[in-house]
Structures are given as C-alpha cells and as structure tokens.
C-alpha cells in the first residue's frame, strides 16, 4: 500500500478518543523516562551486559501495539529482538519487572536470568526479546501458526531491525508465512543502522524494501515511525487485513493454483517498513564514531515523536499543557519507582541457578543444583 493512497483513506486515528490518545502519549513518555533511568543505572554499573536503548523509536512500539486488541493482551502476541524494553512496556509489562530484570533481581520478569535483551511477559502476550539477530522471525511465524492452527483470530507482531533483514532466518520465515498465509506482521524497525553498518551497505534493494515483500507475494506497507498516529493508522489497517488469515494448503489439490493469498483481497501476512531513528548508540558501549556528521539525530529530534503528539493534542484541544505535565510527572514517577523497586529487590539467589532448566526435572535439577566440581559423587548428569 503506497503512502499516497493511504493518505486519501479515512484515518483510523481520527476515531481515537482523547483518553486513548493521551494513553498513547503516556506510553511513549514512559518509555523515554524509563530508558533515561536505564542509561543512568547502566552508567552506575547497576545494569550490565549488552543494553540497547529504545529512545527515538517510541512511536514504533506504541503506534503498532495500540492497533492490537486492547481488551485481551494475549490475543495479539508480540515478539522481537534485543532492543526490547520499548515494546515490552508498550505491551503492558510493568516497568518494575522490566527494570528489576536488568538489575538481575529475582523480582525481574525472568528472575534475573535473562537481562536487558530477554524481556518476557506471558500474561501480556510478550513472547520475548531475543538476542540472536533474526532469531525471532521463525518464532513470530510459529506463534502465528499456533493461532491459525487453533482457528483463533489473533495477529502476531514480529519486530526486527534492518540488520536482521540479511539473516536467512528472516527469509525463511517470510517464505513460510507466505506459503501458509500466517497471521503475522513482520515489523521492520528501520533505523538505518545495524551497529555501525549503514543499511545500504548491508541490504540489497535498501532504497526500495518493498522488493523484500514482493519476492514472497506478501503485502507491503510503510510508515513514518517518528509519527505515532501515522504508525497507528498503518497498523490499524494492516492488522485488520492480517486477522483470520487462512492457510491455502489446508485444502489439498491444484498446487499450481495456490496463489490466492496474493490477490490482495484475502487476509494474509504483511511486511511493514517503519522508518525510525535511534537517538542513542547501538548499545551502551557504542561510541558512534561512524555517525558523527550525519545530522540524522538532530533532524529526528526536530520531529520528535513525543513532541509531535503533544502538539497534535494541544492544537486540537484534546489535552491541556497541564494534562501533559501531569502525564510526564506520572511517567517520571513510574520510572523512578521502577529503579527503587529494582534496587530494593533481592538478587537472583543461588537457589535459582538450577531451576527452570527442565519442567520435568531429574538428577541435579531436582535438588536445586550441584557445586561446580564434578566428582564421582555427583557426575551422574
């Protein structure tokens, strides 16, 4: 769907009530304030490992997730890469659990076993941040396969970075989603960089990513990921067009006529190119030498997604400056509370070391773990 024709369509965001718009604004501010605290805590070495900041990309998570079913968070699952704090929070994960996880605390969403790159929240339909680039793509297809198999009407959002476009796992997942017409949307968070590699150096057809979808006969859409309402509009339409995707191979027969999901009318999977900008380095340890002169962050900041929605609300009288200040105060308080909660929580205890390895435990995993030395007494592993 080209942006030109999209602009002539009615905008789904016009139907949003002021309360819903304010909620979207709050969700974006919360991510920003939360990530500011994350950076601070990382600097203070309270957070370790690799830590990827979501600032700048808030509208991607919030615009897309706001277009999912709001009543039942498990109905429309999300899964993604390691830059996951943003879509974890937007999906409804409590900031306390997210921050505590990064502090390695037992109160974190994964008990301190996962860390920044592995946010999971089953109750919220958050199937995880995944740290191997592209590794989430087959998972997204698989969750969609489950939905289709059970004849439910959920839609999966599978987030990936532009660097993941070059992984075999991405291509194979696109193919599977296309041949079985799975209810999944591959959400490209296109910030133009994979670490220090510009998208044009790593991806063929970077100037026209529609080609990636066309190669699989898949629907393509794109939107401005610095504009949360444009992102919401795009996702509202595409989510509707992905729901209830039917598997053409559930009917055996004329294989050469198997192209019906490509006719543009039947619901099916989609590839959405969301153009965004990461304000920070790739991770907390990236000095960004490759990017000094581009000016892209300054340009993006002049179209900052949060400021954009603030302007929209004020200009249309949908919120007052006081409302906005109150939302920001609330977000700041939540972020501060998350840090306080994480600080006060106990470390992941040694007794958790050997738990969660198996569901049906045996041997060393029953007793809660063995010492590190393998002797003839405990080598029955």
């Amino acid at each position: 769907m080209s942006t030109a024709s999209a602009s002539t369509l009615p905008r789904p965001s016009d139907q949003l009530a002021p309360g819903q718009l304010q909620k979207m604004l709050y969700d974006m501010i919360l991510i920003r304030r939360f990530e500011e605290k994350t950076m601070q805590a990382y600097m203070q070495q309270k957070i370790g490992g690799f830590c990827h900041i979501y600032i700048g990309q808030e509208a991607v998570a919030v615009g897309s997730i706001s277009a999912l079913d709001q009543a039942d968070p498990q109905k429309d699952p999300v899964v993604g890469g390691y830059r996951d704090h943003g879509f974890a929070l937007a999906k409804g994960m409590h900031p306390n659990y997210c921050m505590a996880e990064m502090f390695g605390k037992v109160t974190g969403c994964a008990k301190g076993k996962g860390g920044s790159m592995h946010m999971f929240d089953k109750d919220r339909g958050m199937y995880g941040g995944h740290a191997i680039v592209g590794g989430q793509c087959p998972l997204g297809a698989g969750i969609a396969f489950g939905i289709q198999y059970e004849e439910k009407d959920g839609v999966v959002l599978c987030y990936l970075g532009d660097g993941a476009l070059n992984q075999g796992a991405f291509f194979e997942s696109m193919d599977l989603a296309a041949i079985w017409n799975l209810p999944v949307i591959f959400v490209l968070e296109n910030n133009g960089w994979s670490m220090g590699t510009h998208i044009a150096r790593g991806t063929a057809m970077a100037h026209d990513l529609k080609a990636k979808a066309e190669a699989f006969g898949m629907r393509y859409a794109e939107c401005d990921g610095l504009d949360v309402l444009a992102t919401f509009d795009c996702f509202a339409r595409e989510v509707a067009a992905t729901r209830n995707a039917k598997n053409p191979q559930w009917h055996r027969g004329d294989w050469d006529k198997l192209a019906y999901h490509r006719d543009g009318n039947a619901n099916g999977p989609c590839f959405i190119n969301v153009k965004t900008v990461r304000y920070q380095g790739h991770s907390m340890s990236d000095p960004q030498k490759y990017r000094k002169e581009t000016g892209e962050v300054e340009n993006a900041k002049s179209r900052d997604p949060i400021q954009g929605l603030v302007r929209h609300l004020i200009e249309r009288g949908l919120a007052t400056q006081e409302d906005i200040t109150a939302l920001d105060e609330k977000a700041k308080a939540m972020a501060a509370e998350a840090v306080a909660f994480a600080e006060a929580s106990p470390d992941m205890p040694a007794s958790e070391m050997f738990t969660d390895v198996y569901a049906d435990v045996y041997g060393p995993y029953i007793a809660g773990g063995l010492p590190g030395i393998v002797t003839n007494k405990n080598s029955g592993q």
Partner: protein
Amino acid sequence: MSERKIQYREAIREAMQEEMRLDARIFLMGEEVGEYNGSYKVSEGMLEEFGPRRIIDSPIAETGFAGLGIGAAMYGLKPIIEFMSWSFCLVAADQILNNAPKMRYMSGGQFGCPIVFRGNNGAGGQLGSTHSWSMESMFSSVPGLKLAVPSTPRDAKGLLKAGLKGQDPFFSLESERMLGMGARGRKDFSRYLHDGDLWAPPENDADFTIPLGLADIKKAGKDCTIVTAGRPVHFALEAAEALEKDGIDIEVVDVRTWRPLDIETIVKSVQKTGACVVVDQSWPFASVGSEVVAQIHERCFDDLDGPVLRVHNDDIAAPYNRNREQDMLPNARKITEAVKAALYRA
C-alpha cells in the same frame, strides 16, 4: 625476558597482518571488521593498511559469509572469517560443521578447505545465555577441524599464524575477557611461566608459529596436574598461588589446542604427579573435559592415586545476574577445592 607490552587483541591482529603481508590470498571478512575497526578493535587499522578488497565488512548474514569463505577456500583463497562472537556462528552451523571440516573427505581429497574461523568465545560479562557460549566441546567432536583456545598473547599469535599457514579448517576461540590482557606487559602470572618470554610473542619474527597439537606447561609442579586451556589457565595459576600456601605444588598443562590434543604431555605430567584435575570452560556433559578424563584413565590408571576430577561451567544456561554468572563459571576457588579433593586434603 621479553619486555614487550602487547595485548592479546594486538597479538591476534599482528598474526593476521604478518600473514596477510606474506600471502595475498588471505582476506578478512566479518561484521564491523573494517569501517568500524572491529567491534572489539581486534582489526583496528587493518582496513587502512589492506583496503576494502581484503578487509571486508559483511552484513549480519553468518550462514552466507561463513559459507562464502568455505567456497572461496575451495577455490584457492585463504579466508579469515571473523564471528563477532562465536555465539553467533550457530546460525551458520551447517556451513562451518558440515561443509568446512568434511570437504576434503567428501571430495576424496580433491578440495581442501584452508580457512580460519575466529572470534570471541566464552562468557563475556552478563551477556546472557545465547551470547555466552563456549564452543570447544561441541566443535571438538567433529573430525576434520582443528581448534585452539589460546591463553596468552604469545599463544594467540603463534597459533593463529600456524592456523593461517595450515591447510585445514582452523577454529580460533579467543576470549573477550582477555582481549585487553597483557596491556601492562609481563604482568599477572608471568612469574609462573617457566620462561618469562612466554607471555608476549617475539617482535619482528615473521616465522614465529606455535605448532598445533603441542601443549605448554605454564607452570611446573609435582603434586597435581591441572589440564586446561584458554582463560581458565589463569584461574589455575591463581589457584596455584593459593595452594602454594598449603604446600601443594601444582603443574598447569595448557593444551592450547583441544584438537589435536597433546595427550602425551598430559600423560607424562600425570605419571609424575599421580593426581589430576581437568578444567574446561564448557559444560560437563560430553565435553573436552570428559574426553581428556577418559583418555587419562585409559593411559594412566595405574599412575593415579584417585579419580581425575573436573571443573566446568555449571550444567545450566548462563544466567544474566552478575554474581550467579560468576558462580556458574570455573574459577580459582573451585580449582583449589578440586585439587584438594583430588589429593584427599579437602
């Protein structure tokens, strides 16, 4: 005594540079190796020296570029394929385990595969379970490849140069935690190195290599043999200090390459000491550690005063939590305990 100050990462770079100057068929390919100067600065300055034809930034496409390297090696080039971390090579497992080590055999000797795969191995520091792989055990079981886990700048350079001069697929498992090691010259445990020169590689000696399959006794001793490689060599040397206070004198055998394994040096040491602990930074089950224990029991049963004990990563995925990650890994305390247990002095 060498006074050379050279980091582990610089030693790896030096090996690549020297061999690339000698052999125009060698190129380096990997993520961020060029314009970014290497995500861990191992290849810093190499784009400057060799240009973009030979220092090649690849997209995040490990199956593609690892396999491309294998094809290029079959054709006659000598690729160095860098994995930013060995943890990321698993998406390319078919290429590096199914193609590279078997090509010569499958083709009845027609196509060799002289290729070097290298990158960071082992837990980095709270990187979580997918990013903390120690590959030595899984990979070493595959015939057709050679695999080194260097513990000093000297070994890193000498082994990599040997790998680059060789004709077989060579896997260099470097340690992120040791990349900056050696920055302060002959520091740390150099007093234990039986020859002070063994910390830093020689300067201006392009012919210097370390043969693959030759263990190095990092510290001689008479009471108990420690067999290990890579970063745990330093934990073993640290344990040696602690044990010295209890009057226990350990011998640290650094195998340097798990495949080929220098079992003769290990056997000789165990025959001398009569006790042995194997330290291996991968998981215990079906590991290089268990393989060495099996071979020692086959060869030294009558020389041993008790069973050979092992120190490994705990048998779990790496936890993110800082303290628990440390608990999970081999360390000097665990080695000290194991030695005392092996000597019945616990």
